């Protein structure tokens, strides 16, 4: 639109002198809209906002200063310059309108030369204002994109570059962040002198940069506490807790006494409990928490100890596709309550079994018609036999992609599959 021709609005055009004026402007190449009658409400013109308004103060039923003020206040019209057309004895009216925000005026009889000059000048001003508005919008958008990128980078930086692959096992993960980062994470690392595989799938409740930072915190604390060896002092021993914990399980048969630490179980409990306590004590004001599943696997025999802190239960699926177990919650989400106890539960992963852990980004994924993916659909996908962990994830992932085609992904989608190989394939 740099040809000097613009969209003009002439207000009050019923009068004969305005008719010829409008005609002349039209002949000069401008697009002229003429508003001949009321109601004089700027909202009328907001759908196709003009670049420049010519307002005749002699228009009947027009409260001109009020109209000018309303135009200035209007979101769509607010930047369009207003040129007043007035009778020579109406300087008071002109002054009032200038005070209300009009830019300039012409007195009757309107000189075509002066009109042309003013229209040209104020169109240019109008365009400059438009450009500034567009630039501001662009910057705001870029800033938001940058924030998202920052959040995304933080999140990526805290995901493992490599997953451990203990002999006889396959560990795979699949991660698709939402456009607005939502703070899922997964992690896997060897513990207790490589005798145990620890793995985590977690979901931070929130979005954006705060969620990404909180995720980084939870992930770091979980890893750090899992790798410490905290031993009880005798003072803690005398408080009821640890004794009760050890004494409080049903069977006294050696090895069956669940409260007794076995390799890595202290690390498992410490990781979740100490992280929880740290967040509750130091970040209460954040009001954030994370649902988290932390599994501790003995690769030599498939025994799994786990804590499920409010997270959707992972499934253990047999080689034939039958769901053998859902590993349900053993405590509340991490970061919610002080002095919570997180119970450890146990499961067995036999040769050919797969453990599938995920975040609710999977089951709550929506299609273009805003229907959910649902746990039912997920389970039916899992119930087909899988010959590899990566293959299983790929199957779920491609089903999700098809399902979500055309829809925006609102939540991070995170999945992990751990499969115990069959002896013949080792």
């Amino acid at each position, binding site marked *: 639109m740099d040809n000097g021709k613009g969209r003009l609005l002439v207000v009050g055009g019923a009068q004969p002198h305005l008719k010829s004026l409008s005609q002349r402007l039209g002949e000069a190449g401008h697009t002229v809209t003429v508003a001949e009658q009321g109601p004089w409400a700027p909202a009328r013109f907001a759908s196709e906002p003009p670049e420049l308004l010519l307002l005749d103060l002699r228009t009947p039923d027009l409260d001109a200063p009020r109209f000018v003020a309303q135009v200035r206040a209007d979101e769509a019209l607010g930047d369009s310059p207003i040129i007043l057309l007035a009778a020579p004895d109406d300087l008071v009216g002109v002054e009032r309108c200038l005070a209300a925000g009009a830019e300039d005026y012409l007195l009757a009889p309107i000189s075509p030369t002066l009109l042309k000059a003013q229209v040209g000048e104020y169109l240019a001003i109008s365009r400059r204002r438009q450009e500034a508005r567009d630039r501001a919008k662009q910057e705001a958008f870029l800033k938001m994109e940058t924030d998202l990128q920052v959040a995304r980078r933080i999140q990526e930086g805290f995901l493992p570059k490599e997953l451990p692959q203990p002999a006889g096992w396959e560990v795979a993960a699949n991660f698709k962040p939402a456009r607005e980062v939502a703070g899922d994470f997964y992690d896997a690392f060897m513990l*207790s*002198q*490589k*005798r145990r595989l620890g793995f985590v799938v977690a979901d931070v409740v929130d979005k954006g940069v705060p969620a990404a930072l909180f995720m980084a915190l939870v992930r770091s604390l979980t890893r750090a506490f899992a790798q*410490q*060896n*905290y*031993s*009880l*002092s*005798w003072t803690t*021993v*005398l408080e009821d807790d*640890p*004794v*009760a914990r*050890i*004494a409080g399980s049903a069977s*006294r048969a*050696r*090895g069956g*006494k669940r*409260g*007794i*630490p*076995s*390799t*890595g*179980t*202290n*690390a498992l409990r410490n990781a979740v409990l100490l992280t929880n306590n740290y967040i509750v004590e130091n970040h209460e004001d954040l009001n954030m928490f994370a649902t988290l599943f932390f599994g501790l696997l003995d690769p030599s025999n498939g025994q799994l100890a786990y804590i499920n802190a409010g997270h959707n239960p992972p499934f253990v699926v047999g080689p034939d596709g039958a769901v053998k177990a859902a590993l349900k919650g053993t405590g509340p989400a991490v970061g919610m309550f002080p002095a919570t106890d997180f119970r450890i539960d146990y499961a067995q992963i036999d040769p050919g079994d797969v453990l599938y852990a995920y975040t609710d980004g999977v089951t709550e994924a929506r299609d273009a018609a805003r229907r959910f993916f649902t746990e039912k659909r997920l389970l039916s996908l899992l119930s087909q036999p899988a010959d590899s962990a990566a293959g299983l994830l790929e199957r779920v992932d491609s089903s999700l992609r098809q399902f979500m085609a055309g829809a925006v992904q609102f939540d991070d989608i995170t999945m992990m599959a751990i499969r115990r190989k069959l002896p013949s394939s080792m």
Partner: protein
Amino acid sequence: MSRVISVHSFRGGTGKSNTTANIAALLAAEGRRVCIVDTDILSPGIHVLFGIEEDDVTKSLNDYLWGKCNIEDAAQDVTERLRVPLKGRIYLVPSSMKAGDIARVLREGYDVGLLNDGYQRLLEVLKLDVLMIDTHPGLNEETLLSIAISDALAIVMRPDSQDYQGTAVTVEVARKLDVPRMLLIVNKTPTSFNAAEVKARVERTFGCEVAAVLPHSEEMMTLASDGIFVLRYPNNPMTKLLQQAANRLMSDGD
């Protein structure tokens, strides 16, 4: 059916390790396969009684805890060292005597869960009849663990007021942990004390059976690392008392 026996005392210097070694020898002499684990990592000592020196230890409990070996690799067959033919066998899993290793444990700690798994493994791999756990004095997570998984617990104490108080704490904890069999062994009893009175008094105080009241013994002190007392002096009254204690520990009570 294998049996796990923990030997514990609230304070140091009660003669716990000595008692452990002697009871183990008596059990082995009757034909059993016995293993002693020295879990007193911060102040290991029982190996001395078997004549083991630093150079004799290739792999220690510490190496297992730090993932360098399996626990059975750290178990030494010390039967031949005793120079007395035994019907059974004695194994020892020693803790490292090297200052650096002890310092490392202090600095880093270790996964106490490894101990429980280690005990189970020893029972299986060495086909043990008896596993004896020589614990660190005082209460900590290792002690809790060993008490919790034991079939029998022997608490060694001296008949002085400090030990009375500390032992009360241990007895209370052991009760909460539901040990099937708990016995007290009163050691280093001054010869001026009446053994029967001491037994009665201790049993009354703790509501717990006393397996033996052992007198303070000069011979035991002078023997030191020259061998295991009960094997050297099989007819000594002290040996008979220790045999009594061993029998009580192996039985499930009346």
